[in-house]
């Protein structure tokens, strides 16, 4: 066999993981999403170093300032620079949005797979528990978590994780039930696959597409619910900035000073858009049916 052929063969022989990455990196939309996310994360990390003003210092002479050269995004009702608050608030918002969704997705998908795979009593018990969780409004749950564990960003994330789990469980279970009857699972049993391997190798990759979409969409919701959580003492406390809270504070002044909601809203939108682009790209890259 010639060297050239050898190289080609090796390239074709690469693992699913490498193949997915290669296809993902070739997807321009996904790469744009990834770039935006990286920039956002850098901003979050560098926060205080790049913010032009302090995020909590008030300048009452300059309340409701429209966007100008000094304050490109304007100032809020207490004269604080909105750009600086967005930059510094990105840390809390991204943390809450990403960590809480990652947490509920991981827990929810594992539980949902188990429920869907085993069925019967296991399924029944798990799903009735999820009914109980879903019957509690997220706000009441948040208050309970706050009362039990005290306020703070971490507890806010915990409350969001708990309220997000049932949705993922339901979706993962439905997705797994679709695959449950497939003969390749029986074939996997016949060749001595363990249950864990069947779930990880044969079920999850085939059940993941709808879940990726829900994950990327969930981040926005999470950021927004975090703002209502700060109302009961969970999450970021005023005067510290956070995107969702800035959005809801600006809502009262939307008629006269729309810049107070436009900029936080746009930032949230860009984050979610970037995640969606990356998520869709990832979904397509993992699907061998879409030719590259």
């Amino acid at each position, binding site marked *: 066999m010639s060297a050239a052929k050898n190289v080609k063969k090796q390239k074709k022989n690469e693992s699913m993981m490498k193949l997915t990455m290669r296809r993902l990196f070739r997807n321009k939309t996904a790469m744009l999403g990834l770039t935006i996310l990286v920039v956002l994360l850098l901003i979050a990390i560098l926060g205080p170093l790049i913010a032009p003003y302090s995020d909590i210092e008030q300048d009452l002479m300059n309340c409701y300032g429209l966007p100008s050269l000094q304050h490109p995004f304007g100032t809020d009702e207490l004269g604080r620079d909105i750009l600086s608050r967005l930059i510094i608030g990105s840390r809390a918002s991204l943390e809450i949005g990403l960590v809480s969704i990652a947490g509920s997705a991981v827990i929810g998908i594992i539980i949902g797979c188990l429920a869907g795979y085993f069925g019967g009593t296991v399924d029944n018990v798990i799903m009735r528990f999820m009914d109980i969780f879903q019957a509690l409004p997220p706000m009441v749950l948040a208050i309970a978590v706050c009362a039990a564990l005290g306020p703070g960003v971490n507890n806010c994330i915990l409350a969001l994780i708990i309220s997000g789990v049932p949705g993922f469980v339901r979706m993962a279970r439905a997705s797994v039930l679709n695959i449950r009857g497939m003969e390749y699972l029986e*074939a996997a049993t*016949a060749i001595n696959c363990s249950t864990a391997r069947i779930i990880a190798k044969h079920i999850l990759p085939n059940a993941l597409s709808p879940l990726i979409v829900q994950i990327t969409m969930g981040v926005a919701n999470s950021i927004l619910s975090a703002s209502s959580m700060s109302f009961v003492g969970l999450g970021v406390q005023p005067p510290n900035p956070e995107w969702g809270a800035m959005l809801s504070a600006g809502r009262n002044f939307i008629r006269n000073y729309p810049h107070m909601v436009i900029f936080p809203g746009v930032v949230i939108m860009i984050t979610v858009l970037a995640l969606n682009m990356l998520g869709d790209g990832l979904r397509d890259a993992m699907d061998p049916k879409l030719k590259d």
Partner: protein
Amino acid sequence: MANTLIEAKNLKKYFSTPRGMLHAVDDVSFKIEQGTTMGVVGESGCGKSTLGRTMIHLLESTDGKILFKDRDVTKVNKKELIKLREEMQIIFQDPFSSLNPRMSVRETVIEPLLLAKRYSKAEAGQKAEEIMSTVGLDERLWNAYPHELDGGRRQRIGIARAIALDPSFIVCDEPVSALDVSIQAQVLNLLQDLQEQKNLTYMFITHDLSVVRHISQNICVMYLGQLVETSPSKELFKAPLHPYTKALLSAVPSTDIRHKKQRILLQGELVSPVDPKPGCRFAARCNHACERCHEPQKLEEVSPGHFVSCCRVKELN
């Protein structure tokens, strides 16, 4: 030659349903000899596939014994089961649902080899390549995904996966009924070649009588979970004894126009397999049913290797 590889003794498989016990396989006994093919025929829903899956332990049997190499394998622990499964494999009906769409041909074929832990990664890769060539998959298809291939090639992957660990017994669950006729022949020939090369023993489940006639030495006829007749296939096609087998065979279209066949038309509906009454389940549709048919029937040997479960078999033939 007469070396029994696997034997079912009064094998039963019941499923509990909200309406009662569903008797999918009821009191079935037969033997399959090493290197031969046992065809299992019957209409849809008669328990053929359940029987096949129970034989290789994909489903736990309710009662009865399965003797594999003279050892009862119905009650085995996890460790023995793993060993056992390397010796018994299954080929599925639908090549579109029996392959994981996210795994390439190579990954699918190599998986059993890696799981068996007998081979290093490199050895497993080499073995997989050998097997893929054996079943006639071109080298250019090795890294393809199932959706890129047609039914016949997909079925070849299923066969490759089944023979990867050199099993001695393979259940073929209607392996060709989802394929075009031209491809059916290819796959059947492949199965027969493999049988010759590796001295495989098949249990060939199908509802296609011409296929079963072509491939199997012995045939079991099932009706609603019961074994009604089992016999060497030549004898069965020449002289069927059970009224159901007669009706079944009379439905096979013939290419011989001079040979006028008497079509036996069955009246009535299938009785429910949920909590059935004792006795012959075919009695409700049988033209020859009498009082005695409602008592439990016994499988009786009428000639060497030819068993029939019908109390009137002697008077009728």
